[in-house]
């Protein structure tokens, strides 16, 4: 999970119950105007990245297959299957392409995400 940025206040928003999100699957959440894709891994680790697939332009990353490439946890865009590193947002298949990364955590059985 990305560290909370130093010196900035962060507002956490609860988006759903942890057990409503299947392990190794994502869900999209709307925070203000920002679409966030939240993923739960098999060990309950949570990640949040932008939902927009920068390569196709569609808001679909939350619907991709979750897996690993080497040791890197990734989501594969459901549009054309490029891999995105869930920890950094970097696209592993197209150099220079990244998506935003947001802090995500579980508190009292609820998944929370922070969007600046």
């Amino acid at each position, binding site marked *: 999970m990305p560290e909370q940025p130093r010196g900035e206040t962060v507002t956490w928003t609860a988006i759903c119950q942890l057990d409503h999100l299947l392990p190794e699957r994502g869900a999209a959440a709307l925070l203000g105007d920002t679409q966030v894709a939240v993923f739960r891994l098999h060990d309950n680790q949570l990640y949040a990245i932008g939902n927009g697939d920068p390569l196709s332009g*569609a808001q679909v990353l939350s619907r991709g297959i979750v897996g690993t490439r080497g040791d890197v946890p990734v989501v594969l865009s459901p549009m054309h299957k490029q891999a995105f590193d869930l920890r950094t947002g970097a696209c592993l298949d197209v150099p220079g392409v990244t998506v935003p990364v947001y802090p995500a955590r579980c508190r009292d059985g609820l998944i929370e995400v922070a969007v600046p």
Partner: protein
Amino acid sequence: MVGQRFVEALAARDVDRNWAVTVLAEENRRAYDRVRLSAYFEGVTAEELTLAPPGVPAGADFVLGEPAVSVDLASRTVRTEAQSFGYDALVLATGSRAFVPPVANADAPHCFVYRTLDDLDAIRAHAAGKRTGVVVGGGLLGLEAANALRLLGLSVRIVEHAPHLMPLQVDLAGGALLRRRVQALDIAVDCGEGVRDVADLDADVVVFAAGIRARDELASAGLARGERGGFLVDPTCLTSDPAVWAIGECAAVDGVTYGLVAPGYAMAEVVADRLTGGSSTLDTPDMSTKLKLLGVDVASFGATTGPLDVVYNDPATGVYAKLVLTDDAQTLLGGILVGDASAYPALRASVGGPLPGTLADLMASGAAPVGLPDSAQVCSCHAVTKGSFLDAVADGCVDLPAIKACTKAGTGCGSCVPLLKSLLAEAGIVQSTHLCEHFAYSRQELFDIVRVRGIGTFSELVTAVGTGRGCDLCKPAVASILASLGGGHILDGEQAALQDTNDHFLANLQKDGTYSVVPRVPAGEITPEKLIVIGEVARDFGLYTKITGGQRVDLFGARVEQLPAIWRRLVDAGFESGHAYGKALRTVKSCVGDTWCRYGVQDSVGLAVALELRYRGLRAPHKIKAAVSGCARECAEARGKDFGVIATENGWNLYVGGNGGFRPRHADLLLSDLSTADLVRYVDRFLMFYVRTADRLQRTSVWVENLGLDYLRDVIVEDTLGVAEDLDAAMARHVDGYVDEWRAVLDDPAKLRRFVSFVNAPDTPDPTISFTVERGQPVPISIGTRP
């Protein structure tokens, strides 16, 4: 294209981001593949032709629809109509324009050039309802334009002033053979003829494809021009101004312009290298070309005339080959291939060295690239030599994806991929059948492991015989295997996480993130009441409606959260999932058969309905389509399907292995004059044997080719493997176990909860999805043009 290659090449080298790049483009779209322009008329979209995905390369600023109109060399400034840009380095990649010969009335409204997607749109708009077209120019572009007009339904004539077609690439004999093949397509060819007045051509549409001229207007700022036009540059691509470079068709390298993309790409790499401190210069460009024009392979490479010619000319098969050798016949200088260019990659790579095989074998094509020297260029798009290929292999690139990633070989036009594969084999590397990095097994092996060990989940399987947590290759494949072995509903428990987005939402993902909905209409037979329900659902949910090629109605534009409500209506009216989203049986198409047709000899509709219902929901390595024709007239196109049935006076003929996707294939006759019971038994075994033994995403066409028809017949009729009983039982379990997937979802609140655009705002639609209206129906607003 060359400009895009330059910005990508610069981004790759300029790791410290010393350069900020602004691209000024005349067209309103990013770079696209002009080499494949004609594919636009075959249904390939402008988007599929793009070479420049949004955001690539990162950091470059693209100004579209705003061409540079002037340059001030003294102040190092470029101006467009609207603004001006200062520069430290200016790279001109303005390309070329179509040359229109000085012909009377060449500016008439029915005259066009063939250069941009806008040109193609204009031709298409004008050709509607017209009958005759003439293409002026019988070169590469002229043949492409002729094919385009043909695809638009015009009767076509080519007028070429040289004595034969493709005068720059092939010789007289090759041109004559090409002409015969073109004429066989009902295209008239007049060679050795000039055009004086467009009015003489007597055509509804005239397309000029008579060559190109460099776009060098910006040279008026004080840059030197080549004698035949183009910005004059030295072999480093530098113009007469020390801060201005030119690449591609607008550049005259030592006075010579090159009308092919490979030399342009090489120039882009040279300038990117120079701007990042390198010292590369342009080698003599490789002018080799290989094209498929009007379905005819044409290739030329190296020198096309020389001291010793060896010619092979077979008018019966329409194959022509000419190899040019040194007078001692020891060194290959170049050659021409028409009709069959399969030896092209090996021959092109051998130019400058000994022949890669015996002369007789090479002329008959398909030669193995044994003995290529290390200096041989194996990929001309990216200038990769066999030596650098072998270096990559030594560095651990042991399969094609790794070779592509490491050397870029094979990522351009793709024509060298077969050569790369045989070079890998030659290097002693056995091509892996591993499904992906997580499983060192093929799909067939995993199928057996799951079955024999009785494994029920992906987690069990990956823990037992795999590594990591899976990917888009192995997860759907394992989901399919579990479904084939009776794993329950595809969205039950952990299985839901394995499914690709289509299976996960039981609908087909479209380019804008919406889904399409396809109810099953077995064999295309539907009652008026059900047709009305489909119409009402489409109207009430605002869906775009299209009849598919498989005799179904496709409803487009549904948002995720609308899917359950749409399916509630459809299920209530008696519809089932059409499985259009799955690697599964799609449709069994039919003609009307002997119920209505005066030629029909059997009830094709009744059989097609029975087969579609029998195999509905059957998951397979790839999607499966089928058809039943009621007589040999074949109105259901059964031989273009994975399995097809054609009625005879005595029963049914069974064909298998058709379709084939991007490599279309007609099905082969497996068995003839079958009774209905025998037919169903053999189709059962054919399908189940395929489901259990094919590779991931292997179509029946390739699977059947690999097995051989005789072997397949032995297995499913003679039962030589002793598996028939097992296959029969497996199919019986599938048929008995069928449950409509959508009905099961509608009955399950936990599954329904996943059908939302936003988990924290279940009733809010995705605000980025919006539609416009075309021909009376909603269509997505293209994401790239959204404000």
